[in-house]
């Protein structure tokens, strides 16, 4: 991690903001009568004019510190995380901190790893850590400077603690100093002194409790909850197959439904608009649409996967090569082979896809859980023929995301914009039903992997050949430039640059084409690569007659980080010493993704053809754990999300039509299948790395390995079934 780079970027941001800007205490939200949630409501209480210290920090005279959050809060705790960094360097009182989503403004709020404003790749904390600390330190320096002037004392002699600035007999709150302090020029970043970790009060402690509040009393506001005067609700009839278009439609019966106000075609289907969602869906039921399916995908998933199985028997595009793995495998008398199949997966976030749009000519105002402001702004402006600065985005909490809301085509945001464009001046809330959401595509792609290894006389792999077949996620997206020489690295990440030492390696990729839209899904390529890697390593260990942990540690001789994480997991889970009940098995997996390493050790109990995952011991190395409890929550949640896919989740298609429609046939993890999870954080002084995704990859292979340990049965596809 290059801290200097962060510091430079953020200092530019801060110096640009070296002017006073007093905004009235009312926002568009209040004018429109929206309930924006407890903390925001407090921020907008009487007399709460906000004084901007920089792009991220403002302080009101009534002593509230508002932190603008440039990332989407979708449950990962980024409100709290970024505010923790600010509060730490400000020496604020945690109770005085409130958070609010930043507006769409790439100049001020770019993700420093992406060069655009957006949330993803578990980079939220990693790219912001120094930037937020500097924003807090800059605000603190301005408060101290103002106090020094008022009191006629040296700034160096002033103390700041718990939100109070003091010197001998003088003492003032941040709010009391805010007016004078905000008038001062922003300090040069180079002049800021950041705290030594030994002095941290918030970072690495449990003192910073969650700031995305209102979630235990129903007051938190999501897209679904936006209420605007005169707002209408819209649903869209989408084609039954991907790639089909509207040929013609008869709206007469739909318009005859009491309360249905508008029916019209848009590019993605036929929109039905009414005063409320239920009425709109009633109208849609009466709609008669003829679809042009000439260019639609008509294959089923079984047919597609069969093709992938054939592909992995043939050479693909070489993504990584060391030595001559194929020749060594051909010459070996001790070869192990594994083929693994992965289905399409829906994100199935709890809040179905939705978006509120208000369009006037080329201007748009949007309300939704916006994950990619820069891309969405461009997509909306393109629909309206306007400029990105004519698109105002009000970001609200997202009811889960897991990748779906970072759509590279801004699919549903464009759909909402197109509907609102037909109804200028009227705010429209587009709502997808669960069925719309599950049929709406942008799945984790299906893949087939084939791994072949030659073992040496000690049973260690001397050569490894890996072939992967499946769709590219990046192709056709704003990330397409990351595809180099036909290789979408996200299809094979986790299998290339493997942490296990194997002298000869070759990784080959077959990038396939289907009409099924695909997208990143919590941990992207690692959702499948960690499975084949870790299940295959266990197969090699069995062939070698070695303990799975000891075998891995031997292969990790060049990787101290994974070694340390795996060793701690083995110690915490009492690997090799704990006696398990009859019918129980134990499995392990370790994987690095998004800059972090996670090892998981799983205990399963088997009863006939059924099994239960009883317990998971996880260890994470994510650098500095800014909020340890949130790190644990993310690993717990990442395990649950991955476990759902390991046990249940599967999207299939028959003749191009998605078979699943709702939670009765797209089954997901429920409480009765949730194991006990114990998370340990490896102490680290490295810069923070991701935690939103890295907990997910190891769980499925660890469960498979545990099941194999107890049943002897091996697994070649997800979800895992004993019968």
């Amino acid at each position, binding site marked *: 991690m290059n801290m200097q780079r962060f510091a430079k970027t953020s200092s530019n941001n801060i110096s640009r903001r070296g002017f006073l800007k007093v905004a009235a205490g009312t926002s568009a939200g209040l004018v429109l009568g929206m*309930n924006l949630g407890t903390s925001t409501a407090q921020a907008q209480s009487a007399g709460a004019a906000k004084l901007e210290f920089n792009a991220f920090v403002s302080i009101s005279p009534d002593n509230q510190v508002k932190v603008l959050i440039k990332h989407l809060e*979708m*449950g990962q*705790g980024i409100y709290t995380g970024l505010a923790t960094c600010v509060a730490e360097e400000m020496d604020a009182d945690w109770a005085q901190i409130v958070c609010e989503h930043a507006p769409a403004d790439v100049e001020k709020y770019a993700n420093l790893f992406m060069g655009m404003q957006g949330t993803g790749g578990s980079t939220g904390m990693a790219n912001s850590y120094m930037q937020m600390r500097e924003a807090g330190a800059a605000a603190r320096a301005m408060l101290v400077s103002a106090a020094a002037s008022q009191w006629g004392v040296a700034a160096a002699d002033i103390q700041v603690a718990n939100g109070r600035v003091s010197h001998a007999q003088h003492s003032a709150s941040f709010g009391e100093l805010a007016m004078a302090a905000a008038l001062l020029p922003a300090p040069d970043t180079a002049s800021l002194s950041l705290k030594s970790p030994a002095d941290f009060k918030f970072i690495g402690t449990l003192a910073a*409790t*969650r700031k*995305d*509040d*209102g*979630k*235990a*009393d*129903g007051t*938190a*506001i*999501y897209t*679904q*909850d936006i*209420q605007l005067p005169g707002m209408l*609700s819209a649903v869209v009839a989408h084609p039954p197959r991907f790639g089909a278009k509207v040929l013609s439609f008869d709206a007469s019966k739909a318009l005859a439904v*009491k309360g249905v106000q508008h029916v019209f075609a848009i590019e993605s289907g036929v929109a039905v608009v009414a*005063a*409320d*969602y*239920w*009425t709109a869906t*009633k109208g849609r039921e009466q709609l008669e649409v003829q679809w042009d399916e000439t260019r639609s995908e008509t294959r089923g998933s079984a047919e597609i996967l069969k093709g992938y199985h054939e592909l992995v028997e043939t050479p693909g595009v070489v993504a990584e090569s060391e030595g001559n793995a194929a020749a060594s495998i051909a010459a070996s008398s001790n070869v192990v082979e594994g083929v693994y199949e992965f289905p399409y997966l829906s994100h199935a*976030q*709890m*809040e*179905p896809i939705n978006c509120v749009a208000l369009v006037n000519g080329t201007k748009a105002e949007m309300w939704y859980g916006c994950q990619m402001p820069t891309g969405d702004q461009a997509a909306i402006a393109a629909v309206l023929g306007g400029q990105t600065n004519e698109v105002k985005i009000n970001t609200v*909490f997202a*009811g*889960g*995301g897991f990748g779906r809301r970072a759509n590279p085509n801004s699919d549903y945001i464009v759909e909402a914009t197109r509907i609102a464009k037909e109804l200028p001046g009227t705010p429209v809330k587009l*709502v997808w*039903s*669960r*069925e719309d959401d599950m049929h709406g595509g942008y799945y984790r792609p299906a893949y087939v992997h084939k791994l072949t290894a030659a073992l040496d006389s000690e049973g260690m792999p001397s050569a490894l050949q890996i072939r992967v077949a499946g769709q590219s996620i990046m192709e056709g997206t704003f990330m397409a430039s990351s595809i180099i020489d036909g290789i979408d690295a996200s299809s094979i990440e986790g299998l290339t640059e493997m942490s296990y030492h194997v002298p000869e390696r070759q990784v080959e990729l077959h990038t396939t084409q289907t009409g099924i839209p695909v997208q990143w899904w919590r941990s992207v390529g690692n959702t499948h690569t960690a499975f084949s890697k870790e299940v295959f390593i266990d197969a090699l260990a069995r062939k070698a007659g070695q303990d799975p942990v000891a075998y891995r540690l031997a292969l990790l001789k060049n990787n101290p980080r994974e070694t340390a994480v795996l060793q701690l997991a083995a110690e915490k889970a009492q690997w090799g010493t704990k006696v398990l009940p009859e019918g129980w098995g134990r499995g392990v997996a370790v994987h690095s993704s998004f800059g972090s390493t996670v090892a998981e050790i799983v205990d399963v109990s088997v009863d006939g053809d059924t099994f239960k995952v009883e317990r998971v011991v996880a260890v994470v190395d994510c650098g500095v754990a800014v909020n340890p*409890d*949130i790190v644990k*929550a993310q690993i*717990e*949640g*990442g*395990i*649950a*999300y991955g*476990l*759902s896919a390991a046990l249940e989740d599967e999207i299939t298609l028959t003749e191009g039509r998605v078979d699943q429609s*709702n*939670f009765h046939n797209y089954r*997901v*993890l*429920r*409480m*009765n299948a*949730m194991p*006990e*999870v114990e998370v340990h954080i490896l102490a680290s002084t490295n810069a923070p790395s991701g935690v939103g995704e890295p907990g997910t990859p190891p769980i499925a292979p660890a469960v498979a390995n545990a099941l194999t340990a107890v049943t002897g049965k091996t697994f070649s596809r997800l979800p895992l079934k004993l019968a």
Partner: protein
Amino acid sequence: MAYTLMINGERHDVDVDGDMPLLWVVRDHLKFTGTKFGCGLAQCGACTMQVDGVATRTCVLTVASAVGKNITTIEGLASPAGNALQQAWVELQVPQCGYCQSGQIMSAAALLESNANPSDAEIDAAMSGNICRCGTYSRIKAGIKLAAKDMKNVGGAA
């Protein structure tokens, strides 16, 4: 058609079709948005309200059949169990995205109101109709146990 509903102890008159689910009457017409829409098929529990004290999936309960019942939404949850759960949710930092949590708490409140000291199996049975895709299940379970304990302590003191 006009219906009179008793929600959170207050009378509300609405003019909607009788087959409109209570969820959409409450959300789109009465503007109480704490109760969430997740599936529309009684599969996920996000829409859970208490109807005469019973945790009920209101995305499939018609407004016509809700007439004459005492309906409690998350906004009106004020029972000792409800309060204890909400405190426990904050203390254990249960929610992540939070979208399912109104429904989780309404189901949990109905559980604790009928069973002050539920076992793990009883919690699983009462709560497995409520999906959380963020995977906060362990903390939800711990929250229910903490709330049950807090209620017992309060009861003991009284």
